[in-house]
């Protein structure tokens, strides 16, 4: 994959995404900083997709090493904790934020 133009493309995407991130997130009010942190936590749970990709690649390549098998499963487990836990806890926090009028 030492395709320089492809690498430049990926770097371009990275830099633009960083700018978008700064723009969007700098508008989040301080009162929501804890949910922001847990929501971004959940978003980096996309690492689960990476764990799935390498686990599949490992099995496609024969995949007999028991240690690596365990590590691959642990990687998927950690990624899944990150995604599911992150979104669930953010949802739980956000449903507590209420306006003055609205009761339960």
């Amino acid at each position, binding site marked *: *994959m030492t395709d320089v133009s492809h*690498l430049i493309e*990926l770097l371009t*995407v*990275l830099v633009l*995404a*960083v700018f*978008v*991130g*700064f723009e969007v*997130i*700098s508008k*989040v*009010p*301080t009162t*929501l*900083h*804890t*949910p*922001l*942190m*847990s*929501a*971004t*936590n959940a*978003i980096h*749970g*996309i*690492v*689960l*997709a*990476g764990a799935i*990709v390498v*686990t599949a690649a*490992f*099995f*496609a390549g024969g*995949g007999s*090493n028991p240690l*690596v098998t365990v590590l*691959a499963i*642990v*990687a*998927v*487990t*950690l*990624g*899944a*904790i990150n995604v*599911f*836990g992150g*979104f669930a*806890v*953010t*949802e739980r*926090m*956000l449903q507590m*934020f*209420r*306006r003055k009028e609205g009761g339960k």
Partner: protein
Amino acid sequence: MNVAASLLDLVAIALFILGLHFLNSPPTARLGNRLAAVGMFIALVMVLVQTLGVGWWAIAIGTVIGATIGVVAAVRVKMTAMPQMVALYNGAGGGAAALIGVVEYSVFLASGHTALDPVVAIALVLSMIIGAISFAGSIIAFLKLQEVMTGRPITYPGQQIVNALIALAIVALGGWFIASGGTLPIGAFYGLLAAALALGVLFVLPIGGADMPVVISLLNSFTGLAVAITGFEIDSVLLIICGALVGASGTILTVDMGRAMNRSITNVLFGAFGSGGGSEPAAAGSGGPQNVRSVSADDVAVMLAYASKVMFVPGYGMAVAQAQHSVKALADQLEARGVKVLYAIHPVAGRMPGHMNVLLAEANVPYEQLLDMEDANPEFPTTDVALVIGANDVTNPAARSVKSSPIYGMPILDVDKAANVIVLKRSMRSGFAGIDNPLYEMPNCAMLFGDAKASVDGLTAAVKGL
């Protein structure tokens, strides 16, 4: 097929960014979180489809176990324990990024190729190092926040030198890995992983409890970075963008927190702040025991009940005492009597950004009443009673005037400008920074000693009885 998958990834990315955008106000925030979750669902389904079910059983086992742990923990966790929960989820992401590197490397070894592509080699080694540091650091942060280990900084002679040596070893082994195209001995590879884990543990050890808002934010940005680099490793635009968004968010929060303490990030990481403990008061000026005025709950109740504006100033002490519901009950009593109640929240009150806001939201306090520092400070001169509940250093006027004070220059809540200040405190022990608070000796300030929750409940009962 590939085109469809790429387009759906694009939809997922748009949903993530829209989701973060909707987090910009409390009424739309839930929609934001759900949009991001839908994006995640699409992205994960596409990945599963593309892997064509290879290794499905391993993926299924991991997903089921992980989802169960994650959701059960999310439902059960107490709101006061949110900082350590976020630290754990963050560590999980970092750990996954590190293990992806390990598995990817073993795939390369089994493939019979002679050398790794240089871009993949660099990405693999960087994401593994940063992910491992984030994982180990988050676990230590969790243990400190959960108070399994002491929240005080843990220091020992030569600490910085040990850390520097480990960092050097990581650079050397990482460089070797890249230069050799991944053909170094397997022992050296695992040595690199072990060194990164050790550095993660050692760099969080000397950081004290009150600095945790900075550390958690920083670890969050580390995991984001690790995920973005993993994107380069497995050639995934999705991971690059998600990682970049999280990295940006963590960086913004880290800088905000540092600014709210008037300290640089390097000072937080390497300063071992608060380890001085008993030796600090000398520097603060007064030294010996402070002359403070103690009041009874009944006196305070009268003061509160006949005030026109009361400002609550919550801190970590409120979280420790689980007093948020009691605080809301007192506020309801006062509001029923026509008192205007507001809350002043310092950016670093508590153990993570926004910690107090979440606790008060749990107790049904409307978010319009929660003022951040910029909005709260102009309110104090017209406030009749400022009720400080388990906050200390963030109210210390020495930060404004005493140049020799360790917290000089830190922006604080100007509670001393209120007509009356009542401080709820367990004892006269100094705050985290280990320094005296001259606020307590001011003529308009009085202390109500006791557990925060018991004191607030006592006030509520006394106000009711009036």
